[in-house]
């Protein structure tokens, strides 16, 4: 078994892993927390002398938000190459032809999990999840999270766990008794009305935390973002689902009574770094279970003419036992950002709700029939 596994993993990885163990120590190595680079003449600047952050950036990456168990903080070039090749091989595998004379998929579902809900999603050729690891200061990172040094988001507070549980109980839950033959179905009530569906499904706001803050990759597609910058305002546009966040420069936060879905963002320059401070969140968006008192500080600086460094710090004592931080690069892309226009073809939501109405009437008819006999 061991030999087979080693063969699977490949000699390259083993050699690379051995070489890296000196610094790996089971994922506890903190990535070098170097200060922002000294002002460079090489970077583009605006007329008022600040770094010009304007551009379109593709945030797709293989580096996950949290470090997978057992991985070091930093991959050697050989380890990264191995994993990047695995991802490329997977794409190649999924691009291969299917059987021409195939049958319909299995009755009762194909066993797929998550959003694909036992019916599968769609072909891989639609996806663009990223093909390489984040590299900062010459380090290929295995997590966006850099603090705590284990690359994992700190534990939630007891109060936050209770809050999450209450929210979960307020929302529909899976009912194994009634839906035992239908594992992709979320359960009674989940599809009753549009407001029980997620913000992304309703085309209201991006996926996970694509819009942010903090801005995070979604790991499947449309990870493009655009920054437009003037002396008074910085705008960060997220392609999916077309969310524009306006950062007011050198301004005060709005009164606490004013709550916004992406929070209230104000910016200032700290040397060559744009610092964005965001508070005043609403209860509509709960970043990983955060409270409306979430406080996000983002620091955006230029590494070079085609790369930004994006750092974020999350502080929400009601939710996490400690503040935590992450960073990754925003590489410039020459590709075009397109309008997402999510409402234009959102048949899916209507299909979901129609399906729920049909189930409702079928269940009612069944009940009536049972009562009669």
């Amino acid at each position, binding site marked *: 078994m061991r030999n087979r*596994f080693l063969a*699977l*993993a490949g000699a390259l*990885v*083993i050699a690379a*892993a*051995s070489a890296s163990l000196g610094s790996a120590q089971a994922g506890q190595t903190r990535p070098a927390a170097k200060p922002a680079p000294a002002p460079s003449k090489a970077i583009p600047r605006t007329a008022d002398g600040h770094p010009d952050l304007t551009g379109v950036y593709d945030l*797709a*990456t293989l580096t996950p938000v949290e470090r*997978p*168990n057992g*991985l070091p903080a930093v991959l050697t070039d050989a380890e990264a190459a191995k*994993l990047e090749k*695995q991802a490329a091989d997977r*794409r190649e595998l999924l691009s291969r*032809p299917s059987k*021409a004379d195939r049958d*319909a998929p*299995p*009755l009762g579902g194909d066993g*797929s999990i*998550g*959003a694909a809900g036992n*019916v*599968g*999603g*769609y*072909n891989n*050729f639609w*996806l*663009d999840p990223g*093909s*390489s690891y*984040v590299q900062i200061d010459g380090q290929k990172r295995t997590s966006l999270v850099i603090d705590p040094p284990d690359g994992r988001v700190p534990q939630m507070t007891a109060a936050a766990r209770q809050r999450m549980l209450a929210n979960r109980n307020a929302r529909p839950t899976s009912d194994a008794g009634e839906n035992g033959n239908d594992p*992709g179905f*979320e359960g009674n009530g989940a*599809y009753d009305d549009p407001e029980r569906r997620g913000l992304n*499904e309703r085309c209201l706001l991006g996926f996970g935390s694509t819009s942010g803050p903090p801005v995070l990759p*979604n*790991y499947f597609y*449309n990870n493009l973002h655009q920054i437009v910058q003037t002396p008074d305002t910085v705008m960060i546009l997220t*392609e999916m*689902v077309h969310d524009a966040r306006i950062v007011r420069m050198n301004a005060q936060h709005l009164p606490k009574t004013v709550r916004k879905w992406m929070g209230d963002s104000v910016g200032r320059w700290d040397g060559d770094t744009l610092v964005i401070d965001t508070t005043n969140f609403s209860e509509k968006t709960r970043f990983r279970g955060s409270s409306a008192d979430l406080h996000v500080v983002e620091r955006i600086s230029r590494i*070079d003419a085609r*790369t930004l460094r994006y750092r974020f710090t999350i502080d929400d004592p009601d939710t996490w036992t400690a503040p935590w931080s992450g960073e990754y*690069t925003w*590489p410039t892309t020459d*590709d*075009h950002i397109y309008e*997402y226009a999510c409402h234009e*073809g*959102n*048949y*899916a939501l209507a*299909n*979901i709700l*129609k*399906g*729920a109405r*049909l189930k409702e009437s079928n269940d009612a008819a069944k009940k009536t029939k049972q009562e009669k006999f």
Partner: protein
Amino acid sequence: MRMKLTMALAGLGLMTLAGAPLLAHHAFGGEFDPNKPVLLKGKVVKIEWVNPHAWIHLETPKPDGEKPCEFTPNAKCEEWMVEGGTPNTLLRRGITRDSLAAGTELVIDGYQARDHSQLRANGRNVTYPDGRKLFLGSSGTGAPTDGADPAEAGRGRGRGRGGL
């Protein structure tokens, strides 16, 4: 220790492998019925090149179909709508709504919408009749390449993390 890291790396690879096709815009399980698998063989009528999902309209011959087929002479057809992914990623590879010509023959397997009065299904796997995946390689109908080969003229710029 060496073994542990190797296993972690292999595990990460597997996680990446398993994850890709399962991500989606919405709850597929709420939209489509796992007890209604379908295999559709027909010809493209049109494609709605819209977000959050592109929809391929496909006519499939059926003796008691509701209307005459557009692309199969002297036959009746019904029209299915099949859900795909976002057009944006394909647009970036040079694929447009015109890349999938009307009349192109396709084979699609998926599951029908939970509301069975609708001829709608998810495009779990969309291929040409010989099994090749849609938009990958030449379709013989003018569909361009997918841009994966950097040598292809004009497109195929590096996606993901460049500029480092």
